[in-house]
């Protein structure tokens, strides 16, 4: 029995097909947190596939900064561009990654503005999984950004004395830190109303944080108070760590600092984010 009308434009809903679908009545076992988080990560990748423009910031931004700083300031700051590049590149890698994390908040806020998150929140899945999944997807973006910076660096003459092991290890730690830092932006994205305000606030935090550090220059020539600020900035420690690993030393103190601050970031902003998420209007 095919009790349907005869429109051609869009095939109408068919009664028996609908019945079949509804009667299937399958109730698969509920998947665990890892599985649902990975599924949300898959969603993030699909979005990159459909909207590849969103990779512009992870590709163009680091390239721009590396070229600008190396050739504008390299000679003046370090005597030669080649020498400056050895100092700058690990720092740029840190800056690129940390800056890219902002995008997490902006994307998430856009998502929440639309209705999709309502559906996710009404599903019987581990509650943080949409957020964790989005962050897992972002790891792909960070890796892409890092790969581009390192490749460009190698082309321009960056020679890491720590070899492949040092590079890989420093990138891995950097990604871990970025993943943890992203929770700050997910929190912000749940507090602020529009993607634009998320972008604005993030910029306000990130610009001073990345520039008032040892990413671009050695703080030795700066006034004491400035050095004090730079000394407490976690980005400084991150940059020192990456620099150390890439150039063949093992800065154990800095690695410890980065790991502890990563854990702290998640421990503080993770729960706040989840409370906000749960009580979101």
């Amino acid at each position, binding site marked *: 029995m095919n009790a349907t009308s005869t429109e051609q434009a869009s095939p*109408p*809903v068919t009664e028996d097909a609908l019945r079949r*679908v*509804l*009667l*299937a009545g399958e109730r698969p076992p509920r998947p665990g947190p890892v599985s649902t988080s990975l*599924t949300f990560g898959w969603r993030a990748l699909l979005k990159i596939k*459909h909207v590849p423009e969103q990779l512009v910031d992870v590709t163009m931004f680091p390239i721009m900064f590396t070229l600008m700083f190396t050739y504008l300031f390299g000679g003046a700051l370090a005597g030669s561009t080649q020498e400056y590049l050895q100092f700058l590149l690990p720092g740029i890698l840190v800056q690129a990654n940390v800056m890219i994390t902002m995008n997490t908040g902006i994307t998430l806020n856009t998502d929440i503005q*639309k209705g999709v998150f309502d559906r996710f929140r009404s*599903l019987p899945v581990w509650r943080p999984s949409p957020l964790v999944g989005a962050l897992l997807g972002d790891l792909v973006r960070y890796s892409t950004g890092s790969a581009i910076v390192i490749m460009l660096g190698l082309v321009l003459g960056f020679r890491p004395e720590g070899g492949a092991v040092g590079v890989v290890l420093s990138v891995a730690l950097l990604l871990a830190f970025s993943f943890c830092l992203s929770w700050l932006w997910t929190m912000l994205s749940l507090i602020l109303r529009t993607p634009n305000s998320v972008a604005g606030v993030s910029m306000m935090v990130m610009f001073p944080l990345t520039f008032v550090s040892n990413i671009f220059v050695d703080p030795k020539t700066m006034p004491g108070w400035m050095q004090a600020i730079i000394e407490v900035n976690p980005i400084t420690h991150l940059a020192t760590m990456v620099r150390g690993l890439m150039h063949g030393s093992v800065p154990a103190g800095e690695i410890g600092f980065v790991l502890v601050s990563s854990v702290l970031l998640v421990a503080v902003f993770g729960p706040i984010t989840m409370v906000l998420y749960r009580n979101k209007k």
Partner: protein
Amino acid sequence: MGKLAIETRGLKKSFGKTHAVAGVDLAVSAGGVYGVLGPNGAGKTTTIRMLATLLRPDAGEAQVLGYDVVRDARSVRTRVSLTGQFASIDEDLTGVENLLLLARLLGYSRRRGRERATDLLDAFGLAEAADRQVKKYSGGMRRRIDIAASLVVTPELIFLDEPTTGLDPRSRNQVWEIVRGLVAEGTTVLLTTQYLDEADQLADRIAVIDHGKVIAEGSSGQLKASVGAGSLHVRLRNPEQRAEAERVLAAALDVPAEPSADPAALSARISDPERVARALAELSRGGIDVTEFALGQPSLDEVFLTLTGHPSEETPKEDAA
């Protein structure tokens, strides 16, 4: 029908100073369609969001399928689906990707999930659009994929928040067909609407809600009966005779007759249908030609006006949060 699908007592939710829901009591039996009817900002969406565990009530209690929406939120979530007012679908993804995403999240294997997604797309007439991004769908297609997404695992209860708002008549009819199909297969449907004819068409019982409170509840027949037996609508050949016709009808029916928007038409609430024939005879005796007449049950518009004292189209300042 004894079992209640939804039961709420004194449900309240405020946003700042706005009392979006100000004490809602509902008793919705399992099976069938329950309509929540009200203008924009009446508190329909807020009520639904509380029932679907998206919002925590400020006060009161709500049980959905026997589970408390706060304490047993997870049990509620495994049994109900929500189709929100705004497309709760990822517009960047294709139709099939959206359904597969949900299928995976609900525990289907990749292969079974894909089969399920394909079956749903077929059933909703979206097979051809399966690999197109949802942002390229028409309004009616979006609604259908949205409802399909709520059926990846057949829910015992589905919330449809204004499922036909903004749809063209054909798409609206398709959504109505889907709702009827759902009910036929045993799913309970709670739908909100601002369209009185929609509630009339679909709902077995209707709660009329205004300013965050239920102001009337019953079947559409009961609601109509509470307003009066019905009304007589008359259309005249000659609009100039309307004033005279008004007098004649008022005298014959013993109730005031009111001019309609149509300059040649007028209507009167009637308490006693017996008098209608006499009233029409009086008109023709007075030389007033009638081209059309209809005896109708009161529309839900009239019900709304009688219950609230303001027409249903009125939109209060607060938005439908």
